[in-house]
């Protein structure tokens, strides 16, 4: 009997214009969102590619100059043999985070967090706080990406398609008619729901496949395939959660219009209210330290260090009277390194405070995320796409580690007054982004996905139990 009803339902839905319209609309907006995302990531990739190319050219030019001098050393060595001039003024290395294959699907934090840093031998604080030029109006509005379509728009489609699933039949009197044919309520409802659940799953699958094609994701690559599969699983479970919710509301035997109003409010609670409240809660309980105060503290620290440095300089010249006349370039670079390292030490506790508060906020959010499926989906999807905050934290850690190496390379030569030979140009460190292992992605997704599945199962069980008692008349 179940399959008979299921088959009937299937025929009905297959010819339903509303479902085809929903499929078409959802696919079109997903494709638009994927296209917009592709354009955005391509722009960034193009920029990042150019950065390192310029740099290689500059290094080769400088190295050629050194080679000429080495072949025919006459007069003073060129400044390009001075490690201080190179590391603190002429050379910089752009450390770039290459885009991940599914990055076009979710903007995540990629519009705020830098995808590249200009690493020099100067202290890290001099380049860490760079801000990309952007229109704040656009940043505040957010992006129309596939993740947004799935998290915000998809539930509206699902709710619109299912808010009157049972109430409509009742209002039109068809439910009583069907039951008069000897079908039990449970069987009828189960078949009806299964047919629709399959369709909704198919709807999401098709929309996502369209998105993968639009961004040109290479699904023959194992890693990308795994990510794409995870993406589909998360979005399908999230979509089915909304379906189960609509089903549960339906089972309470309210009029269609009341179902609609209640579901609209629940959408509001999960997608708008809870994220906003958890955000404000985390911000009030663990307020980030003030950037404005950091600015004034940095200034105060520089002033103090420079005053101390001035004294130290006098001591230095007392010890090295031969340099007192104008000083030597090396002494100057030596001083820059010493000053910056002192400033870094002075502001380190303040920077640590920023990290500490951010860590506590994140800990609180990762506990409270289980209150809202929309938050779970957002975190899972941006984690899969490689644009979640954790990806940028990982990138920043890699950049800081690289900065140590880069700065070490030059400071060793500055402090040891070792000239930069043409051969040593070839040993200048190069940043290589280490893509975190796939368990990094899976790890970020597992918790949210389990949460979504729990939401879905809970509502399904409640819905089925409640629907079984659904009064036919």
């Amino acid at each position, binding site marked *: 009997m179940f399959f008979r009803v299921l088959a009937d339902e299937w025929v009905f839905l297959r010819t339903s214009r509303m479902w085809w319209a929903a499929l078409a609309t959802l696919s079109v907006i997903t494709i638009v969102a994927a296209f917009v995302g592709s354009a955005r990531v391509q722009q960034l990739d193009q920029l990042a590619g150019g950065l390192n190319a310029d740099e290689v050219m500059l290094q080769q030019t400088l190295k050629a100059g050194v080679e000429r001098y080495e072949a025919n050393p006459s007069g003073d060595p060129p400044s390009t043999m001075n490690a201080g001039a190179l590391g603190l003024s002429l050379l910089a290395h752009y450390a770039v985070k290459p885009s991940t294959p599914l990055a076009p699907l979710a903007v995540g934090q990629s519009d*705020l967090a830098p995808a590249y840093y200009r690493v020099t031998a100067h202290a890290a604080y001099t380049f860490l706080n760079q801000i990309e*030029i952007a229109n*704040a*109006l656009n940043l505040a509005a957010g*992006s129309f990406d596939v993740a947004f379509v799935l998290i915000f728009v998809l539930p509206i489609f699902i709710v619109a398609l299912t808010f009157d699933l049972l109430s409509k039949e009742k209002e039109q009197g068809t439910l009583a008619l069907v039951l008069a044919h000897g079908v039990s309520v449970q069987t009828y409802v189960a078949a009806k729901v299964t047919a629709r659940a399959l369709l909704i799953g198919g709807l999401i699958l098709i929309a996502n496949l369209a998105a993968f094609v639009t961004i040109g994701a290479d699904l023959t690559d194992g890693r990308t395939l795994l990510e794409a599969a995870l993406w589909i699983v998360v979005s399908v479970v999230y979509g089915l959660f909304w379906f189960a919710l609509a089903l549960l509301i339906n089972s309470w035997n309210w009029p269609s219009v*009341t179902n609609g109003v209640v579901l*609209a409010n629940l959408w509001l609670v999960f997608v708008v209210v809870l994220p906003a409240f958890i*955000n404000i809660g985390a911000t009030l309980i663990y307020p980030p330290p003030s950037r404005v105060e950091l*600015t004034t503290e940095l200034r105060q620290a520089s002033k103090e260090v420079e005053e101390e440095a001035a004294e130290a300089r006098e001591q230095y010249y007392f010890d090295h009277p031969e340099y007192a006349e104008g000083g030597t370039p090396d002494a100057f670079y030596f001083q820059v390194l010493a000053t910056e390292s002192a400033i870094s030490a002075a502001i380190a506790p303040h920077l640590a405070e920023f990290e500490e508060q951010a860590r506590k906020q994140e800990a609180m959010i990762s506990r409270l995320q289980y209150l809202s499926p929309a938050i779970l989906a957002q975190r899972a999807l*941006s984690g899969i796409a490689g644009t979640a905050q954790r990806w940028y934290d990982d990138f920043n850690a890699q950049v800081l580690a690289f900065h140590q190496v880069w700065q070490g390379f030059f400071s060793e030569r500055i402090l040891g007054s070792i000239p930069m030979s043409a051969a040593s140009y070839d040993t200048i460190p190069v940043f290589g982004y280490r893509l975190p292992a796939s368990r990094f992605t899976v790890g970020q997704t597992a918790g949210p996905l389990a949460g979504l599945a729990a939401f879905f199962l809970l509502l399904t069980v409640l819905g089925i139990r409640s629907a079984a008692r659904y009064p036919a008349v």
Partner: protein
Amino acid sequence: MIGTVAAREYTTLMRDGRMKLTVTIVLVMLFVALVSAVQRYRDISEERATSQALVNAQFAEQGAKNPHAAAHYGIYAFKPVTPLSFFDTGVSSYQGVSVWLEAHKQNRAEGRPADDMTVLARFGELTVAYTLQILLPLLVILLAFPAFAGEREQGTLRQVMSMGIRGRDLLFGKALGALAAIGTTLGPVFALGVLALMFAPDGLSYLPHAISLAVIYGLYAVVFLFLTLAVSAALPNSKPVLVAMCGFWAVTVFVVPRLAADVSRIAYPLPAAVTVDKAIEADLQNGLDGQSPDAVVGQRREQTLTLYGAERVEDLPINFQGIVFSIQEQLGNAIFDVHYGGLNQTLDAQQGVHELLGLISPVLPVKLISMELSGTSLHHQASYTRHAEAYRREFIEQMNQAITLNSKPGEAEYRAGPELWAAVEPYDYEPPGFFSSLSTLGPSLMTLFLWLLAAVTAAVLATRRLKVTAG
């Protein structure tokens, strides 16, 4: 007659149980937004004022120094917050709050609050304005969708119409009743907001802004109200009215603003920071119009020597180095004007996309007007950075003139003291006033007016020939 209809509608709505959920959500959100904002405003405004005073003092007390060293030391310009920024944070979280003003360089604003916000902020920052922009329309829709269609289903519309009431009277009566119901619900929040404003320092001077904001959000509600009434009158049953209006709400409030952001980015792409910096660097080295900075300095040297009838720079009664610094500044400033002027044009063009797409979503003009009146718009940021840059140019010129006039040629060891630092006016910024804000709002006010006109016209047309029976 309109009054009777309104009174009846009002009573019915206030009794409707379905509204309770939404009203509760709205009130809780408004309350949390208001309380947290008042707290934050107090902290932030205090901190900015203290920091500005601190850096002003740091500059004044920097001890004896060459004025050029003082120019390099520079001053920070912090962006003060307006009292209404607690109502609508606008785009301020995504913009730098301080600019370092130093010699040779126009720096961009730094210290963006968004960089320290949680990832959940990307769902939307909870402010009173955000709550109103999103929930006011939903409240109105849920309130008004059964206005005609529901009565039609219950058969009461036939009765009412048989009493000879004109469709238009019924429309305006119902509209008035619904507005009264919304007013009763949200009025106390408005009063609380005004009270909070009164207690904020300098809050009273923002009363015209606050009243204008109330009017704008009122009109916003009216637009959705008449649209809902139009659809409710046109469609036979209340269910499709609810689906259609909720769909319209979701698209206009959530989808279109994001689409506007992406369309504007694609239509008018902004250059990357590194690209702009490289272009500025190249222009600083080569000169803007093919005239190298060295050539300009050489020319001026000849002119100055001729003017004073001197043979060599060392024979001049002034320090020519100061003039060189001034020339470098002027050349640099022209270059900054070209590049940052171009950037600002692109930003304006992008905002133009948001203004244009306001024609398909009434939330866009309301957002733009709201952030402008709250002092948290792009225009306010531009005004702040422009003011900071003008201040920088004047202050650096003061330093350069001090070198030119007070030191001897080639006297690198010249030191200026507290008198010179005191001669620099402490940095102080006044945000644009009410009328300056209004003057930027032409397109958005016009769009909102068009929406109002369209909504009322649609409702009047839809109620001209009311069908009394459900389909």
